[in-house]
Each structure stands twice: as C-alpha cells, then as structure tokens.
C-alpha cells in the first residue's frame, strides 16, 4: 500500500517548483470546480486536464494508477447498480431488469469526476514533501492544532504499521489463521487493544522526550516559502481553467441528468 504520497516529491517538474501555498490554493479551486461539474462532456474535459496535470507533475504512471485502483474498486459497482436501478424509462432489459442509459451516464459522470479529483489531489500532495505541504496549509490559515495532529498522525502511521506487521508475523508464527468465528473476533479485539497500548506508551515516551527538548506546541521548520511571479501565473491559469469549466457546464449547451441531480 502506497502510504508515502510524497515519494516522488523530488522529481523536478513545473508543479514541483510551484510555491506550495499557491499550489494548494489554486489547485484546490480546480478541485471544487470539478466537483461542481454536472454534464458529461465537461467531465471528460476535466478528466483529460487531470491526466495532463499528472503529466506536468511528472509522477510515474504506476504510482498514480496504484493509488487510483483503490478508488476504482469502489466506483465500478456504480456502473452495474446505477443503470439497473435508475427510475424512469429503460432502453432495454437484461434478465428482466431495465437498463437505463440515464443511469449509465450518471455512473460515468461520478466515475470521471472522482478519478479527476483524485489525480489533482495526487498532483498537489505528490509534488512536495508532506511536512512542507502541511506547513503550507498552516500558512493558509489552517488551524495550527489540526496541522500538528496531521503531522504526528502521518509520522505515527508508518511506525505503527511496522508494529502491526510484526504483531501479525508473530500471530502467524503461532499458527493463528483468521476464520469467521468468535475466537477470531476475540483475537482481533485483543490485537487492536495491544496495538493501541503499545502505540500509546511509545508516543508517551516520545512526547516526554519532546517536552524535555523544549517543545511548546510550535513547529519550527527550515522551510521558507518564496513566491515568484511565475507562481501566480500558474495559479492564474489553473483558476481560469476552473472558472471556464464551470461556465461551460452552466451554459446549458450539454444535457444534464434529468432526475435528482440538483
């Protein structure tokens, strides 16, 4: 599982050299614009733009596609359920169940928007070191406490993941095979409890060490942000694209889903 989203942060690209503060703000606007799209042709354009953005970010294809595969698993059932359950007229019937193109279109719309937004997210957070992204968020007036907790959590996630793997190995070594029964539930309950306590005690020690080194709740980083004119030009282009997408979408030149979608 690719937990380290910033694995390729050092790859030099147009997006990588963008001031993280302005990058998050501008591409954030783009994300919300894509979320507002409700016609299929505009969603296709948004998808193409997202692919282009990934290319600009120079992230390896396998890295992004691995991330997208988790989203796909969730979205594919929509292509089956939506056309078959869409109220109203159906084009033809499969095994006695009506197949509605309207439902298929809705599924395609959901699919394209979701994939596009995830790709933009990858472009934002895959192109800077995670702590730099978080520090940029703090500069964008995200509450300090939230940013600190995100950083702590991100760090702990890897530590505890290793802990969990070790515990899992020792369970397997003792011959534990998970089955659908009460015993398995009980074992997993204790597993989670143990993981919690171990993590807790470890963090307690780390926290005391931090306190003794003078930690007072402030983050001191060696990162300084500097925005150049080119950063604002990139932001201008991104926001212009976002506004154009929504404007074309609202112009009414394309069909919108008939029922329920607004």
């Amino acid at each position, binding site marked *: 599982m690719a937990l380290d989203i910033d694995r390729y942060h050092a790859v030099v690209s147009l997006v990588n050299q963008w001031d993280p503060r302005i990058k998050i703000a501008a591409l954030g606007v783009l994300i919300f614009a894509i979320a507002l799209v409700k016609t299929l042709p505009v969603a296709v354009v948004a998808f193409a733009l997202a692919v282009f953005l990934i290319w600009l970010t120079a992230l390896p294809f396998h890295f992004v596609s691995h991330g997208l595969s988790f989203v796909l698993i969730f979205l594919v059932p929509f292509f089956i359920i939506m056309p078959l359950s869409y109220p109203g007229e159906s084009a033809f019937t499969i095994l006695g169940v009506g197949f509605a193109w309207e439902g298929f279109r809705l599924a395609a719309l959901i699919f394209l928007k979701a994939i596009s937004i995830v790709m933009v997210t990858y472009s934002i957070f895959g192109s800077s070191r995670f702590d730099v992204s978080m520090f940029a968020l703090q500069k964008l007036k995200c509450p300090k406490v939230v940013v*600190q907790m995100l950083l702590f959590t991100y760090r702990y996630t890897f530590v505890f993941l290793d802990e969990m793997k070790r515990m899992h190995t020792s369970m397997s070594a003792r011959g534990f095979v998970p089955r659908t029964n009460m015993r398995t*539930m009980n074992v997993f309950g204790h597993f989670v409890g143990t993981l919690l*306590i171990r993590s807790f005690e470890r963090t307690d020690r780390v926290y005391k060490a931090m306190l003794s080194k003078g930690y007072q709740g402030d983050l001191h980083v060696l990162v300084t942000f500097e925005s150049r004119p080119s950063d604002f030009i990139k932001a201008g282009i991104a926001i212009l694209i976002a506004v154009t997408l929504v404007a074309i979408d609202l112009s009414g030149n394309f069909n919108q889903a008939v029922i329920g979608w607004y």
Partner: protein
Amino acid sequence: MHISEGILNPPIWLTGYAATAVIAGLTMRKLDMEEVPKISVITAVFFIASLIKIPLGPASIHLILNGLVGIVLGKRAFAAIMLGIILQAIIFGHGGITVIGINTLMLGGGALVAYFVWQQRYRFNIKRREFVFGAIAGAIGTVTSGTILASVLMLTGEEFTTIAETVLIAHIPIMLIEAAVVGASAEFLQKTKPEVLAGNKSTVST
C-alpha cells in the same frame, strides 16, 4: 466505509462541511496541549486498523472501529476521525477532498453516539460490563454511520435508493463483527490499561 468523490451534489457536501466545522469546534474546545499526541496516536491506530481484514465466509471485510475511537477518546473522537478522513483523502484518494465534511459527520457522529452509550455502563451492574457495553457501542457506532450514509444517499436523489438499501443491508454483518471486536478490545483495555478508556472512573480494576 465512506462516500466517494463525485456522488453527492454541492448543497449536501457543503452542509457536511458546515456541520463538521461546528461539531469539531464544539468538541475541540479547551483542548489541552497534552491531548494532541494522544489524539494523533489514536487517529493513526484507527487509520491502520482499518486495513485489517476479517474473513467473512468467502469474502472479507475491513474493520471500521469508529466505536472504539469513541470509547477511547470520548468527545475528542470527532477530531480524531476528522484527521483520519483528511489523511485518507490526501494519501489514498479514499473518499475525497469535497466529501471530507460528510464522511467525518458520518463516522465521527457514530463515534460520538458510541461514546454516549459507553458512558452509560456504570448504571448497570452486570457481568463483563466492559465487553457488553463495548460491543453495544461498537454496533451502534456502525449503525449510526450506516444510517447517516444511507440517508445522505437518499437525500441526493431517488436514483440512489437501491444503493442506499444495499448499503444498509451490507452493514448488518459489519455491525456484528464490529460489536465482537470492539467488545473484546474494550474488555482487554479495561484489564490491561484502564486509563486509556474515556471517562474511566475506576483507577484499578484487578
């Protein structure tokens, strides 16, 4: 369990953001500096424990554990779940940026209800109290979240009715497994390190 990007319409996810902001603001009032690492730890554990797969016949399901977060962190559980959801959206693209509000409301709401149930345990004098109340809290946390999820889908449009029904039915086995796992966890924590549990009156249990 989460709503993916692109399904909900803006009025709903904007409402989700607003409601989450209000509840997070209320539940994070008077936050002590010392609580920051504790909340982060639980968030991280919650985050990776959701990777655990439990076999269910031929398939397997993932643990949700929002009920456990509720009984460990109390009202701070909401913030912890919000962080978990933000990280999932950023790192996995699980859920998504626009649905952070709705997803937090769904899982965090379940955690708060679970905490409320858990707090009632001293009113009853029964055997294996922590197991019973942990199990009920785990089940209710899941049910609350499932109900919120289904309602949100129904609100989005009538074409989502079938999916909403499917979601509710799918939550029955998840609820049972969550109940068993959270119950066992709560009992284990009570025996081993009771101060981890939220609102624990008894200092020594053994």
